[in-house]
């Protein structure tokens, strides 16, 4: 089983919803179990909810290997728990199916560019804490329409994916600005993209990071442009089930370890040197400090952060590799830079 960890679970998606209901109804014991960390250790791998293919965030390549910033988060969790970043499994979820999948215990953690909102945090029974990508909703329009601002979009047909905060922000934005529009709602991102590409809609709306990715998939990327307006705050981060603080802490500190590593200048290349010769902060993070119990108190081993950085990299490396200027998406760090560089990425002290 562990030999084949990167399983693409495409077929699963259609049955997820029914499985979720079934699990809720028939009472899968793990659904509301408070010991996800123990379950994951017993299982031998961590199950993460991924998307059905959003380049840069979570998308399978032609060999069925998943990559992206959200997948690297999942790998980070695997490295922290098992010391082996390959012990994970991705379940591909549509935006509609993702919440039942997490609620029912189908996945251990939802690392699927999910926006942290108050209602998801409260009424859905989830917990959010870390934000691995600060995003905002925007519009993609054909250049031939000659639209310079989203405020000129009155009367436009807008393609949007079903069951997202995007759908709600869209309604709010057009209502607030007194504009009319015709929403065309699809369950799958691929269907929405192809409808936009064939001219069914004038505009496509989703988070800006997604727009850059979608633009690359169009027949003629250069004939489309992302409009300047950002109409919402979309803090994207992992969600876990409420009522399991230990697992919640593990998932959160994986991100903080990666951010701290970038702040301290630890990379996957120099982590071995740093472990020997770094300052006290660095040694404490990497588990090289004598008598430190930081890792074991989390329910992990003391070299948990070392494993994450060695096998996955620090936050900057992950960003660069998946969405940064050297990747096909070419997104600038912007507000996702470290707090020391004017961005919002900030980790609490490792102490």
């Amino acid at each position: 089983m562990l030999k084949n960890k990167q399983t693409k679970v495409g077929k699963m998606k259609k049955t997820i919803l029914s499985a979720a209901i079934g699990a809720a109804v028939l009472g899968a014991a793990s659904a509301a179990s408070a010991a996800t960390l123990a379950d994951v250790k017993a299982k031998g791998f961590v199950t993460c909810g991924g998307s059905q293919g959003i380049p840069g965030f979570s998308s399978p390549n032609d060999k069925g290997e998943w990559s992206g910033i959200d997948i690297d988060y999942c790998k980070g969790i695997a490295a922290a728990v098992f010391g082996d970043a390959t012990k994970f499994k991705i379940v591909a979820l549509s935006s509609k199916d993702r919440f039942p999948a997490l609620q029912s215990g189908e996945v251990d953690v939802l690392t699927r560019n999910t926006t942290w909102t108050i209602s998801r945090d409260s009424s859905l029974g989830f917990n959010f804490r870390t934000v691995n990508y600060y995003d905002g909703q925007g519009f993609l329009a054909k250049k031939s329409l000659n639209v310079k601002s989203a405020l000129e979009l009155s009367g436009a047909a807008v393609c949007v994916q079903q069951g997202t905060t995007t759908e709600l922000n869209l309604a709010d934005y057009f209502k607030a600005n007194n504009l009319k529009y015709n929403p065309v709602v699809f369950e799958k991102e691929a269907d929405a993209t192809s409808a936009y590409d064939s001219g069914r809609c004038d505009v496509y709306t989703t988070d800006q990071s997604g727009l850059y990715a979608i633009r690359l998939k169009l027949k003629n990327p250069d004939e489309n442009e992302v409009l300047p307006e950002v109409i919402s705050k979309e803090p994207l981060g992992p969600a876990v089930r409420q009522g399991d603080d230990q697992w919640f802490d593990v998932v959160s500190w994986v991100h903080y370890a990666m951010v701290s590593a970038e702040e301290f200048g630890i990379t996957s290349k120099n982590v071995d040197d740093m472990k020997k010769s770094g300052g006290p902060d660095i040694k404490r993070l990497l588990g090289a400090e004598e008598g430190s119990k930081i890792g074991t108190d989390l329910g992990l081993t003391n070299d948990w952060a070392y494993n994450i950085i060695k096998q996955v990299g620090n936050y900057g490396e992950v960003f660069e590799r998946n969405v940064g200027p050297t990747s096909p998406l070419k997104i600038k760090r912007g507000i996702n830079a470290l707090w020391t560089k004017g961005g919002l990425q900030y980790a609490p002290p490792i102490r």
Partner: protein
Amino acid sequence: MAGDALSSGKPRKSFSSLIYDPQARGIFYQVVTVASVALFVWIITQNTINNLEKANIASGFGFLQGRAGFDIGQQAIQYNSDSTYGRALLVGLLNTLQVAFFGIITATILGFLIGIARLSHNWLLAKLAQTYVEIFRNLPPLLVIFFWYKGVITILPQARDSVALPLGGFLNNRGLFFPKAIWGEGSWMIVAALGVAIVASIAIVKWARARQASTGQQFRSGWTSLGLIILLPVATFLAIGAPLTFDYPVAGRFNLSGGTSIGPEFISLYLALSFYTASFIAEIVRGGIKAVPKGQTEAANALGLRANIITRLVVVPQAMRIIIPPLTSQFLNLTKNSSLAVAVGFADIVAVGGTMLNQTGQAVEIVAIWLVIYLSLSLTTALFMNWFNAKMALVER
């Protein structure tokens, strides 16, 4: 001993005789079945409630009163993002009903035509009908829907190069646009005239039947009624001064505005469901007609009836008895297949419910609503068709 038991007329009520008593055993098994079903339902309900509580998920139907916050592309009634979730569901339900209603009518007409064409003596016509049936019957409905949707939005022109249709209509890949009728004052009189015409037609048909039964003379009641139903409202319309204006669609910045429109989502779903189901109905019709014994036609011929009378009064009524029950299943299938709408962005009850499920997280409640709605739709259709079937059934005298 045995003789004693028989002569006494009452078997002894010992335990062993109760075990071997078929009636007692029957009752026992039924009690056990009912009890286990009840227990199963009770267990899953309790389990669901417990699990939802443990997972800190709010439950109940109160969320239906909340503000929906999202917009719906296709709406038959007034709806905006300030409306409640309940109203959003209603919009979805009406969309489902619309596509099912028009789909059933078209599929039935198309199915009957193709079914009869397959029986035609014209080789080409029969083979064409057969090809149609074999293609559409053997494809999954989702593929047929995609086929029509991709076809509709890629073949039709972009909004800026709309094709002008006669009578002020337009066609582009955003849908079919046509002028909206705005009825002026006194329009109710036209509706009233139509009502009068329908009542009069029913009376004429009844009178004609009675006359034929008593005197044998025929009366062209069909043509008379048709004339009445068309002419009376038209005459009224003209008499009160034609109070009708149109709101024509005009080109806007992105698309045509004004008038009425039918989106490509509805068109493709409606066409796909109609074409798909028509292939099954065609086979049912063919089977029904084939099942009428040849002797019936021959006997009618021997009586000297004309060919169209034989079809109308001898073959079809007998075929209908065989056709209607499986036809009901096809109507139900079409209604249920309409839930594939979300694939092409049509806001049916499943699509709207799916959005709500995501916004509110009330998975169990929304799935329950879906189940209840589809069940009631199916049961209503079945009820109507059973009534119709009873009416068409052979009355034995």
